[in-house]
């Protein structure tokens, strides 16, 4: 049986080089590859293009890579909540490409599924359309969007096995299964790593074929960005 287990985050990120394109799963701080990001922030790697729905906050998530100026370009749908990000973007140090969230998800899914491009109605008639090809289907206008792939994809799941099969929890699933498919080398970090055969095969979300390396994260801070409660 194939064993994809690596010892730790440092081993998991080996091979990441300057100027590579990396994908990061997660929505806000929910379901982000905390341990992999921390390990990357300790390496002198620069010029990265990062594809992630959001860009973390100043001192957590991708904010750690931004602070050390390791990111050259961000491809995201929403980048609020990060003052350092805004500063680098407005000063021109950081290149930013904003794309609609559903388009981002589908571009990742397509990249992993062997579909080079697709037409979507999202962004038609807006700045996002730019000089993209427009076609009419059933009297409605759509724009052409291309698939996305990455040198490495970093995803985070709740449970995983040594074959790379993954199960996510709650809304921490989000972009993780899609980016797992689109990475040429996908690194999965999990809260619980179990031997192959121990996960219920009816409940696996990401089949291990999409994962090349897996490790159990040393520690999960799992920060809450916007704690909101119902008063008793």
């Amino acid at each position: 049986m194939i064993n994809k287990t690596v010892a730790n985050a440092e081993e998991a990120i080996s091979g990441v080089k300057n100027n590579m394109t990396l994908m990061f799963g997660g929505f806000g701080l929910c379901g982000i590859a905390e341990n992999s990001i921390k390990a990357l922030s300790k390496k002198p790697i620069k010029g990265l293009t990062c594809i992630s729905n959001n860009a973390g906050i100043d001192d957590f998530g991708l904010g750690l890579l931004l602070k050390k100026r390791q990111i050259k370009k961000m491809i995201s749908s929403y980048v609020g909540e990060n003052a350092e990000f805004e500063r680098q973007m407005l000063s021109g140090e950081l290149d930013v490409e904003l794309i609609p969230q559903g388009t981002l998800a589908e571009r990742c899914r397509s990249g992993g599924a062997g579909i080079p491009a697709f037409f979507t109605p999202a962004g038609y008639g807006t700045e996002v359309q730019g000089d993209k090809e427009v076609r009419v289907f059933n009297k409605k206008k759509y724009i052409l969007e291309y698939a996305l792939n990455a040198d490495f994809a970093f995803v985070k799941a709740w449970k995983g096995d040594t074959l790379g099969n993954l199960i996510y929890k709650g809304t921490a699933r989000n972009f993780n299964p899609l980016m797992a498919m689109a990475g040429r080398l996908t690194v999965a970090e999990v809260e619980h790593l179990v031997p192959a055969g121990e996960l219920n095969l009816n409940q696996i979300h990401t089949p291990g074929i999409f994962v090349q390396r897996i490790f159990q994260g040393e520690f999960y801070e799992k920060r809450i960005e916007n704690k909101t409660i119902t008063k008793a």
Partner: protein
Amino acid sequence: MALNKDQIAKRIAQELVNNTYVNLGIGIPTLVANHVPSDINVEFQSENGILGMGPFPKEGKEDADLINAGKQTITSLPGAVLFDSAMSFSMIRGNHIHLSVLGAMQVAENGDIANWKIPGKMVKGMGGAMDLVSSSNNIIVAMTHTNRQGQSKLLKRCTLPITGVSCVKKIVTDLAVIEVTSKGFKLTEVAPGVSEDEIINSTDADLIIDKNLRTMVL
């Protein structure tokens, strides 16, 4: 008197149709969930991957792995389901969501909406808004009638970069309920104590006055 945010949400809740799926945007739209009439069943979708979203958790019960699109901690209701972002936007673009309620910075009389960018000032991104407005059959905007500078947010043409073309069907503001028709904005309801003239003066576009113009019931 102009409505407060909660009252705008309460008026929008009257638009909810029984046995439908609804997506609520960030801000005033989120408050709509607090005012669902007791005889109406709706399922709330949040585009980060849940259908059957429940109220905010009680203190101590919050889960970092269960949030809404505004990154607020939430709960799930019995029958709720979780999914990835591609599946979520299949529900949205595939027109399986019946109603989408969004906030806006500007709405034009042809139904164009602008809510993602102020060039040179604020660039946070569109998130899921462009996907949401590209397909939903029913899009209601919740917003204040004027901005902080007192300028009308209802215009003949949006001056900010738009989020979607000719998509808004109805606007509920702190002053009025306005429908977007093929002939332009149609004023159908006024907030209690707000005059027709006040609304006309606060709107930078022509208003068709509905012949059945009435005062909002809240």
